[in-house]
């Protein structure tokens, strides 16, 4: 059961990520990213992280992807032009990524004492999570709330009508 779930959703995850790269229209890429994030939520659930699975769906697949699709539609982003792009990026980038993936894969496969996951493992309840979050890590939590506030102000200041254009023309 666990194996079937893992294979199905890992396959969906990789297929969505590949589709993100192959599609030329941004809206198709955004929708395949939703597929990736939703199947990652199932994988989190298999790993016993129930709160993160729900947060993944609400925050990532919900809020962030709505923001992305909204911007794609707002800017009326058309089909991507196939240009040569940066040749250096392709010539150095692809071998570098392949080598990187190979190194990580060998390190992971050679690691000895990695355990295994079973469906019967205890799940981390939201209560455990919040107990650690609000007792030991209260200060970082409050700092992230300030970060969110700054991000809201920055987004409003940047996206305000005529903030870019007018300064260029003057």
């Amino acid at each position, binding site marked *: 059961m*666990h194996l079937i779930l*893992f294979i199905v959703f*890992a396959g969906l995850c*990789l297929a969505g*990520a*590949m589709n*993100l*790269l192959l599609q030329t229209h*941004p809206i198709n*890429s955004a929708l395949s990213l939703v597929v*990736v994030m939703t199947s*990652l939520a199932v*994988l*989190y659930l298999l790993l016993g*992280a129930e*709160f*993160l699975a729900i*947060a*993944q769906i609400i*925050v*990532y697949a919900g*809020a*962030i992807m709505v923001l*992305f699709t909204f*911007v*794609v539609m*707002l*800017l009326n*982003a058309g089909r*991507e*032009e196939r240009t040569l*792009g940066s040749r250096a990026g*392709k010539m150095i*980038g*692809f071998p570098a*990524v392949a080598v*990187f*993936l190979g190194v*990580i*894969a060998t390190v*992971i*496969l050679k*690691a000895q004492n*990695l355990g*295994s*996951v079973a469906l019967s493992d205890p799940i981390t309840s939201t209560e455990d999570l919040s107990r650690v979050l609000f007792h030991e*890590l209260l200060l970082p939590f409050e700092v*992230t709330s300030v*970060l*969110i506030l700054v*991000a*809201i102000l*920055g*987004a409003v200041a*940047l*996206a305000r009508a*005529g903030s*870019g*254009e007018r300064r*260029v023309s003057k």
Partner: protein
Amino acid sequence: MIPISWYLLLSAALFCLGVVGFLIKRNLITVFMSIELMLNGVNLSFVAFAHQWHLVKGQIFVFFVMVVAAAEAAVGLAIIIAVFRARSTLAVDRIDLMKL
């Protein structure tokens, strides 16, 4: 019973697909989506290691990564809107004002 290394391999594959997307995509929004893909790949390995050592703090780190990703998405998309307003294009090849 699934070895935890499978989850780690999946996370590495997602990260590398994100890097490839960052390199080959020519649309500003899609490049940004590739960054989100990389963040998700890293999150998966955090959750896998949190399960491996039965530590809750690994999952809390993922929570913080999500918060930072949300903030980054808001500011980044605002920057994309500002760039589009100034240059009326989303192709990264045409946004070359600071290139030599």
